[in-house]
């Protein structure tokens, strides 16, 4: 950027002299070339990251201010679509950094060999985290969210939920990452008894949606008493809408976590810049942005702490998270169990 403005200044001085018009044109050419040589960091991420209300715009601005580079986002659906895109593109991907996979997908992602090792960043996750290829940038607990004015007594476990008349809407594990998270949550908490839990829950589940948006939409429209979302969802309503009627039910089994991670592609032409970006992602500036755009917990709590309102959220007694390898191994059988139990 500096090179560009100096050349600009230069050009303006020269343009004062009419005779040097030609030279000015030549210099303009050089200036635009200098601009083209500003390195570009291409970030492959999910849709909602780059949207007007996502963390993308602020993070782009923040990183560009210090990197002397141009950040370009490419978006591809959700977390699962992201991995499919990486696999489709293979070794000649133009992306340098991939932001938005979760730990249920990282084993699969690492197995492609397309990701390069990255330096670990300090984090404040409630569980130990180690992955050679990925760093966490935010995380949340899956939870059933309800409206306090409509549900007087929230269930405190899957068993209580199954015994109640409450109607819930969940996401399909075959097409959405929260849906997959729920299936792994039940599997992690109940192991071999998972199919029984699903069978008991069958009459509570009014429907299964393709993605989070449809499910959350149905819930806010009053079609269901509870929706599978995050413990941090009520924070949005509280902070952005001054609406304190939404709450997440705390389950005694513990809550499964979704840890969103970012990694660097081995094929990147800008490996140093990519490392710099990953480090920036866990900086206080970026983490503060993520909290109130993704409405998740920061991977590393910024110095100023969490925004006011987060202290009202339920704190799970136990944090559940399978290792990447366990999640990968459990995925297909757990989905099959879920499908069999709910298809009866």
């Amino acid at each position, binding site marked *: 950027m500096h090179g560009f403005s100096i050349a600009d200044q230069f050009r303006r001085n020269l343009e004062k002299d009419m005779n040097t018009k030609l030279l000015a044109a030549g210099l303009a050419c050089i200036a635009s070339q200098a601009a083209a040589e500003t390195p570009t960091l291409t970030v492959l991420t999910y*849709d*909602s990251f780059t949207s007007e209300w996502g963390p993308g715009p602020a993070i782009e601005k923040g990183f560009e201010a210090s990197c002397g580079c141009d950040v370009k986002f490419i978006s591809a659906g959700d977390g699962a679509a992201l*991995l499919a895109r990486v696999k*489709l593109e293979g070794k000649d991907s133009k992306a340098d950094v991939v932001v938005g996979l979760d730990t249920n997908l990282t084993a699969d992602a690492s197995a492609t060999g397309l990701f390069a090792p990255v330096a670990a960043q300090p984090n404040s996750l409630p569980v130990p985290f180690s992955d050679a290829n990925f760093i966490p940038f935010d995380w949340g607990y899956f939870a059933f969210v309800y409206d306090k004015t409509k549900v007087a007594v929230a269930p405190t476990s899957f068993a209580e939920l199954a015994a109640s008349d409450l109607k819930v809407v969940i996401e399909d594990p075959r*097409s959405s990452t929260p849906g997959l998270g729920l299936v792994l949550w039940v599997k992690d908490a109940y192991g071999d008894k998972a199919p029984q839990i699903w069978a008991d829950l069958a009459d509570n589940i009014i*429907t299964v949606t393709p993605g989070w948006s*449809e499910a959350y939409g149905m819930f806010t429209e009053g079609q269901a008493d509870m929706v599978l979302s995050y413990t941090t969802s009520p924070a949005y309503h509280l902070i952005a809408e001054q609406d304190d009627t939404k709450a997440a039910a705390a389950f005694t089994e513990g809550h499964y976590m979704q840890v969103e991670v970012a990694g660097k592609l081995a094929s990147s032409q800008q490996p140093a810049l990519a490392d710099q970006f990953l480090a920036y992602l866990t900086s206080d500036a970026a983490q503060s942005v993520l909290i109130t755009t993704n409405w998740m917990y920061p991977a590393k709590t910024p110095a100023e702490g969490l925004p006011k309102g987060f202290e009202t959220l339920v704190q799970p007694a136990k944090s559940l998270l399978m290792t990447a390898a366990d999640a990968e191994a459990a995925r297909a059988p757990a989905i099959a169990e879920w499908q069999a139990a709910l298809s009866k």
Partner: protein
Amino acid sequence: MASSAFKISPAQGLSIVIAALILGSAAMVAAWADGFALAPADWQALRFTLLQAGLSAAVSSLLAIPVARALFRRRFPLRGLLIRLLAAPFVLPVVVAVMGLLTVFGRGGPINVGLGWLGLPEVSIFGLHGVVLANVFFNLPLATRMLLHGWQAIPSERFRLAQSLGLPPSTQFRHLEAPMLRAQLPGIFAVILLICLASFAIALMLGGGPKASTLELAIYQSLRFEFDLGRAALLAAVQFSLCAVITLLAAKLTLPQGFGAGLGRSMDSPAPKSWRRLCDVVAIAAAALFLFGPLLAVVIKGVPGLAALPNGVWPAVLRSVVVAVVSALLASAAALIMATGAARNKGKAIELAAMLPLAASALVLGTGLFLLVRPWIAPESVALPITVLVNATLTLPYLFRLLLPEARQLRADYGRLTASLGLPRRTRLRFVTLPRLARPLGYGAGLAAALSMGDLGVIALFAGDGGATLPLFVQHLIGAYRLQQAAAASLILVAVSFALFWAFDRLGSYYADA
């Protein structure tokens, strides 16, 4: 003659291009596969897909008969408006429509409140009946409009003759209307069946659980989550074969009507009195209530958020309108060429090619194109042109199906005359073909434009930095918990889609009446 047998007509050329596009993209996906195998659950998905599509198509086409007949023979204030508004559900984006349906038929909706007053238990919309309900909501208007075109295509002179002969309505039905239904219904049933085969979000959202999984969901799962390209390609092949069988069966069952040509004048159709009148009133009122209730819900939900809409919505509207109009024009031109071509030829190849896109999974098509363009160009830089191409291709079957019966009729009625006059192609197009086909062409182009507005499937694969179309924009709003703004943006989406549809449809009628 021998030399012309090897010449390729424009219609045949287009058929080859479309078949190459659809089958080629699937082949591209297959080429990347490591192995081919279907999951056991896929067979269950196939069964459910056929069940829900068959039921939905049967209910939609049967219910359309009394509604279209009543609309054809009754004259009442706002009739024209009602007929145009009939298209509105069909052009709604799926998620918006499902939310509208839930407001009316779901928990706390007027239906369940009414049942509660009568002391009856609440009825859940979730299940096979909910899926059929939603599919009928989408497709009843299409079936009604197609049948209405059929009724209007019966030369008014025939009705006048029947009346002067003093034929009772039942005899009129047997001699004039039944042959028309016999000619139209198989095609209409087939189109709706094909539309419902590819449904994914409706079945999943209203089906109540994984037993309501369709083939399209299995494709989604295999492409997105499992990256099992072989399974995706196999599933796409199953969908294509189903489509081919259904299209060929429908073509076999479709008979020419052969009423002979009329003067193309419109006249007041016979309007029998007494109980028949009451039946017609009930048919029209029930259809209007069923179709406009959920629509009204979408409007009511959308209005409060309108004031707070972010500025980003307008560029998204513009982008979507450009995509929709260009796709609609492309699809119309292609459909006109292919329908007139299919009417001339005895073979079914053109018809099959034109119907093929209905069986194409948008996701397979998008993934195939992605793999195809990527070696040469950054996919995100061609997001909009690809979307236009895909939308034009995917909406071609609707246009084609609307044009084909009338193109055949035109050929039967005027083919020999224009041939004996030796009219040049352009003159024939201007004075014979376009005036006769203007009505379905305008309507079809309107549908195509509106469907392209609502399309989301493909752009998401290609979208880069900031090039969101309106449906994607709505998705972003929901993703950011901004549900009220999302409802308002959906309302704008619906309004703009419908305005586009209206404009094309008006243009067609204007041209036909001129």
